């Protein structure tokens, strides 16, 4: 089970990473296009190579149209893809200075409650994201430049948020098991080194 969930989280994280890299490339291409477009529009190029400049511009040398719309949609998806990994590796930032002095049992109890609440929040987020997707679809909202329906982006993010909710539920199960058996399956970030 842990292998399966870990595999899911890692796969999603890598998919998110690939999307992020694609966005980085897209942004760089767009900058390059914009710079070159500026060069071809410059007086200098107009005078020494007018035909070539016009050809290059007509071939579409310029910034990628609506690049930031793609970046926004893509990065939202990527970050939803990153969430399950953070969840399953207990990577969320927390303050343990006080709880370190609590007895182990109390800590296990706290951790169980927190993880159950966290799972509930992740389910709430996925559920509301679904509602958001439905209303975007009803109103037929599209992006400004590329005119693609915004609900597509919501739908992608929703799929990833669903995975986050599933992993969240699994982690809640893990913490419940840990509380009742006293065997720790997943160590927290700082504890791992000690």
């Amino acid at each position, binding site marked *: 089970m842990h292998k399966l969930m870990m595999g899911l989280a*890692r796969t999603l*994280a*890598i998919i*998110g*990473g*690939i999307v*992020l*890299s694609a*966005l*980085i*490339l897209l*942004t*760089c291409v*767009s*900058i390059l296009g914009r*710079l070159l477009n500026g060069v071809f529009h410059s007086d200098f190029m107009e005078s020494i190579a007018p035909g070539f400049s016009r050809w290059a511009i007509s071939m579409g040398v310029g910034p990628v149209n609506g690049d*930031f719309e793609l*970046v*926004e*949609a893509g*990065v*939202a998806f*990527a*970050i*939803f*893809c*990153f969430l399950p*990994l*953070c*969840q399953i*590796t207990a*990577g*969320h*930032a*927390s*303050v*343990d*200075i*006080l*709880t370190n002095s609590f007895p182990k049992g109390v*800590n296990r109890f*706290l*951790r169980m409650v*927190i993880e159950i*609440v*966290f799972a509930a*929040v992740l389910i*709430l*987020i996925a559920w*509301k*994201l679904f*509602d*958001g997707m439905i209303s975007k679809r009803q109103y037929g909202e599209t992006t400004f430049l590329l005119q693609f329906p915004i609900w597509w*982006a*919501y739908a992608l*993010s929703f799929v990833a*948020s669903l995975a986050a909710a599933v992993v969240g539920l699994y982690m809640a199960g893990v913490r419940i098991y840990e509380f009742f058996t006293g065997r720790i399956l997943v160590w927290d970030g*700082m504890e791992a*080194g*000690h």
Partner: protein
Amino acid sequence: MTALEIGIASFPALMALIFLRVPIGLAMFLVGLVGLVWVTDGTQVAFARLKNETYTTFSSYSLTIVPMFLLMGHFATLGGMSNALFKAAEGWLGHKRGGVAMASIGACAGFGAICGSSLATAATMGRVALPELKQYGYAGGFSTATLAAGGTLGILIPPSVVLVIYAILTEQNIAKLFLAAFIPGILAAVGYVIAISIYVRLYPESAGTRPPVPYAERFAALLQVWPVLLVFSLVVGGIYLGWFTPTEGAAVGAFGTGVIAFFNGGLTRATLADSFIVTARSTAMIFFIVLGAGFYNGFLALTQVPQELSNYVVSQGFSPWVVLALILCFYLIFGCLMDSLSMILLTIPIFFPVISAMDFNLISLTAMQAEAAMDVLNSGVPEGMGAEMLASIQEAIATGTELTREQMKELGIRVTRGMANRIEAEHVAIWFGILVLIVVEVGLITPPVGMNLFIINAMDRSTRMIETYKAVLFFVASDIIRVIILVAFPAITLFLLPG
């Protein structure tokens, strides 16, 4: 309870949750959610917000910088840049007393210029420099303290993830904040080097020595550093010159370091997947905090707590400098307990309105007018200006009185109080941001719970924590002296800004 009371009560509730080890993002999210439901009498408003808020937070174009900079830092390590930086600095400084430690600081500063995170800088440079420090006979606690302090340069020297978040929260220009962080960052490195030289003078046995390396080798090592210089100047220079937006700059940086890492043979399928995994974990952590903070701050704004607080502080007539000092002390203490990003997301929406309402007099209207007037007069008295008018203008400049509208019209300049106030507001915001960034970072190396101390100490099992604690106090002292200097002389932070 009134909305205001609920807002005020939410703060201790939040603190209690955080100290019970509820993840900070989750704690803010929960308190924001419950508070919103309470204040608006039902789940309707809160759930309606939730429909779009997660998506819009995660899809924020300016926040895209964060995963890009994180990825860039990993690529830089894979490309051997951390090694190259240390080798170069060590070649030039290593033979001095305490020189290898100084070189570590220099390498951290260099790595900070291509990495936006403090913990990542500390961890990366720790792996490179700790073995070398040990080899040259540097004491354990001294070495770990040096690297923990050096790590904070990662976030002071631009690019910096925390500054990006601050800029978004306070609606300031990211490029200007990066620029303003530059000199304080250099000062920090210099201050740490001074701390090292004092330390080795007091405890000469804590540092070994070695013969100097030949100059040919030093220059060869320096030559290896060019990728760092290239990437840094492209990213920060490009953003500053307006070639691209900060987000685009981050993309260029990540792409550039990726290419370098690929050609150095550091980027393979396995290491690429690893960098995705590490980036994914920190990115998700950061964005969840941003999400929770957005929710909590939305609720807080609804209860009017930030306005009421700033009204209250202003009405009490406290000196702005006292208020600033108190806020910085607060950060210094809480920075020891919480990570810097959470601190900033949690407190800036509350403190920033207070600071904005204060009058620090960083900008003087009369000085701005005098400067503009002198510019005109130095290139010759404008045609048709009477001698009487000229004399009155000169007198106004000499006595430091405000120019009248007529005088400015004759000069052909326009410098109004509104303009001065706008610049003042921007300067205060930037200056405050840099100060907060520094004090929060001091928390990372303040015993007993500074995060950098843990990270570095975990790498060197033979050194006891208490030894690190002792040595790091020298660096903390250097930090505190620097904060005092930067508070007393705002110009150090602000003078690089375009006028």
